[in-house]
């Protein structure tokens, strides 16, 4: 099962990296959206420093949503999803592999770009490491919840528009603790408790979200 899951992951990574459009779109959206804020709220360094962590986090979540609706869609259309369902990976394994591929092609690049945006938004330099660590733990949660949303809206009318409505309420806790970790570092309180809660959320989502996504995928195969 693990081998088959890794095979699906390798295939999706190869597909994702060969058509880098998704990756470029997500990172581009992230950068442009985050850098709209200095124009929207004004360029005062104090105001930007105050909102930087939240802006980076929120725009990263939105950028991560962009490619979610295509997580299962192409495979469902050309019939490979039926084959994958029969593979030893099982639908839960497929969901894990797809979420992992989504994270590596979308979440990880967003984490790598985030320090540049944080500096441009005048975030306290001491908090930048915490920002990256919190996003490193938090963005996989988005990919896992996103797998649920993508699986449930498979074949739905306006599925792409539905995914944010379904997923964003569920990632509110991730956002709260992710931003709280950065702000705790900036104010000198220590980010450890917030990062531990984020890690707990990831530890809960990692086994449970693929099961829910697999149940959603199963509906589309009926």
């Amino acid at each position, binding site marked *: 099962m693990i081998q088959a899951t890794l095979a699906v992951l390798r295939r999706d990574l190869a597909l994702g990296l060969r058509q880098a459009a998704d990756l470029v779109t997500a990172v581009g959206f992230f950068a442009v959206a985050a850098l709209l804020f200095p124009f929207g709220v004004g360029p005062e360094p104090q105001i930007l420093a105050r909102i930087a962590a939240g802006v980076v986090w929120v725009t990263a979540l939105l950028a991560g949503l962009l490619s979610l609706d295509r997580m299962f869609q192409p495979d469902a259309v050309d019939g490979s999803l039926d084959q994958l369902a029969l593979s030893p990976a099982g639908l839960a394994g497929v969901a894990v592999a797809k979420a992992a591929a989504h994270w590596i092609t979308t979440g990880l690049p967003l984490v790598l770009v985030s320090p540049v945006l944080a500096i441009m938004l005048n975030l306290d330099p001491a908090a930048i490491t915490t920002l990256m660590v919190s996003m490193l733990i938090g963005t996989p949660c988005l990919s896992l919840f996103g797998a649920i949303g993508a699986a449930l*809206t498979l*074949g*739905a009318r306006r599925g792409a528009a*539905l995914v944010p*409505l379904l997923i964003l*309420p*569920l990632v509110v806790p991730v956002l709260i603790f992710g931003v709280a970790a950065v702000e705790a570092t900036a104010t000198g309180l220590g980010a450890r408790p917030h990062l531990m809660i984020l890690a707990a959320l990831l530890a809960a989502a990692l086994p449970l979200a693929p099961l*829910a996504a697999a149940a959603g995928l199963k509906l589309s195969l009926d």
Partner: protein
Amino acid sequence: MHRYANPARTLRIVAALFPWIAGATALLFPLGLYLALAGSPADYQQGETVRIMYVHVPAAWLAMFIYSVMAVSSALALVWRHPVAELSARAAAPLGAGFTAVCLATGALWGQPMWGTWWVWDARLTSVLVLFFLYLGYIALADAFDDPERGGRAAGILAIVGWVNVPIVKFSVDWWNTLHQPASVTRLDAPAIHPDMLWPLIVMAAAFTALFTLLWMIRLRAELIERRNRVVEASLAEGLA
């Protein structure tokens, strides 16, 4: 449980219960409103504003209760492919969204004079807002498919996943020490609320529950009849073809 999988039987049961629930609603609501608006004392601190509580608290209880009803119904529908359970979850969703909206609106009306603000990003308020969005997501997903059964099942999974938010709503006032006051009725020791105010609250909660049951039955009946019509139309169309 499987007895009620037969839609015709469920319709008969709904028809038999209907007058009783309608009678209970008609009796409890005027009584509860009288007790809440005239038959109970004003608060020594909050004055007459405390009367908003008699609408706000039952609406909040129902918001959580209805979501749990939806989650349990969805689980029954997914595990046993129970046809009526799926429709019952679907019938409950807009009612739950409505009660959640009432809870948020009355809370804002109370918060303005008492806290000096319509809205704060307090843990309880935020988690109820998330509950509201989960209701909206359920409704949107259930209606997003050409095949309503497929929509009902997909939305059912969302209802079960989203249920994690219900304990967060319930215990948010204990876990985070923010503006919203902690529970004063459902406590292990005696309720921290005077009987003169507790009784109107209990009657109002019963009235709200009866109203929900009544509307739920009406909507469930409509869903069952609509599903039957669709089957009849499909078989007619097949007969013609």
